[in-house]
């Protein structure tokens, strides 16, 4: 109960993992430094930018607003879960095709938000897409290519009902 190291055992992208953390260690930093999964980025450290977005128990969450110790026993998904070994997911391919990233810093959070939307709704409107990524800030692209990439992915999902985003 005191400020000492706690073992956090959790499932990450389907794999059981465990490491130690002080109570004050943010989940984002735990993922990056303890688990060495550096796809998740820390932009603002106060929940405004969305670069740290992961999935916790199937729901999107700001990993900079959770403490690692809170994730003990949980299943989390990070951006590393999207690609399948060497091949990019359809969403990632469309991000590349549509130049939806420049510096790439916001991209993991954008992908996680877009992935969550497309997993829930395969044919979102432009307004729905913009609303879903409204919590993710991008300083480079002006957002339009990100929206186009998500729309292109949605079209592929429409064409192939078996396809996962």
């Amino acid at each position: 109960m005191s400020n000492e190291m706690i073992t956090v055992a959790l499932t990450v992208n389907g794999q059981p993992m465990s490491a130690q953390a002080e109570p004050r260690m943010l989940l984002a930093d735990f993922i990056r430094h303890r688990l060495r999964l550096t796809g998740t980025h820390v932009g603002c450290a106060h929940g405004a930018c969305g670069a740290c977005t992961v999935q916790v128990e199937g729901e999107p969450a700001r990993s900079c607003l959770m403490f690692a110790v809170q994730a003990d026993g949980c299943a989390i998904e990070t951006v590393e879960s999207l690609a399948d070994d060497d091949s990019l997911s359809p969403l990632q391919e469309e991000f590349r095709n549509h130049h939806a990233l420049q510096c790439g810093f916001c991209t993991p959070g954008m992908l996680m938000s877009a992935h969550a939307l497309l997993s829930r709704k395969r044919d979102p409107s432009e307004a729905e897409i913009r609303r879903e990524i409204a919590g993710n800030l991008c300083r480079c692209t002006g957002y339009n290519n990100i929206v186009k990439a998500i729309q292109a992915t949605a079209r592929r999902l429409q064409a192939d009902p078996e396809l996962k985003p």
Partner: protein
Amino acid sequence: MKPPPFDYCSPSTVEEVVDLLGRHGADARILAGGQSLVPLMNLRLMRPGVLIDLNRCRELDYIEHRGDELAFGPMVRQIKAAQSPLVRQHCPLVAQALSWAGPVAVRSRATVGGTLAHADRVAELPAAALALDATMVIQGPRGRREVPAQAFFLGDLTTAVEPDEFLREIRFPVAAPGARSHFCEVSVRQEGVAVVGVAMHLDMVGDRIAKAAVVAMGVDAIPQRLMQVEQALQARALDAQTAELASRCAFDQVDPATDPYASAGYRRHVVAQLVGRALHSIAAQESLYEQ
């Protein structure tokens, strides 16, 4: 920035929560969704010595229809409350307010109790709670007590909850048949922190307003009931003249201050517009959940 060290407790029962509060009192903060508290800790604006994490207290996550009230445990996630058929049917203003409470990733973790207990001056649910005369149930080592919404919000980030207590349950009255409600706000960015907002709940008799509750958010340190607007709306029809009158009343009644986010004039003007828009929206019988 990273938060300073703290002791972390993860109780599984209310009894344990109360015991921890009794022992640590002012040195402790409750951790609910973390969407308000953790940013402040990361920026080192708050430095609790002890965090009491409620996320393993399953008994605090419930929505119950009890006669003419809807009772919420404090740990109900905002997104769940906003999508709940029970809430949409019986307390639509709560669902409407929460749909403005932030982007999906925030609302998936943020809680009903957390936003009320935190009492940010531009949080949506406090405004809705005031409009609906909600009842806050507070619990601590000295037992349980009930505080009406109008006595609960005391100032910036300040509520009637004492340092060794926590918000245990929130009860909203069930909307009467034919009642209409609307919530709208203006923010700098979509899904972002609000500048000002309006929560409105109308009890109707036929096509006339029988009783109005109109709350302005962001014109004061706490949500503000616009009594003059409410009186002006009494017995009126939902038409353009009523909207115009209500809007002017709101403009005259509010007295916001200028701050780094918006000028007093801006807040006053926008709140008046939102009051008018809320009435137009209700009159047009648009979908209650449209943004």
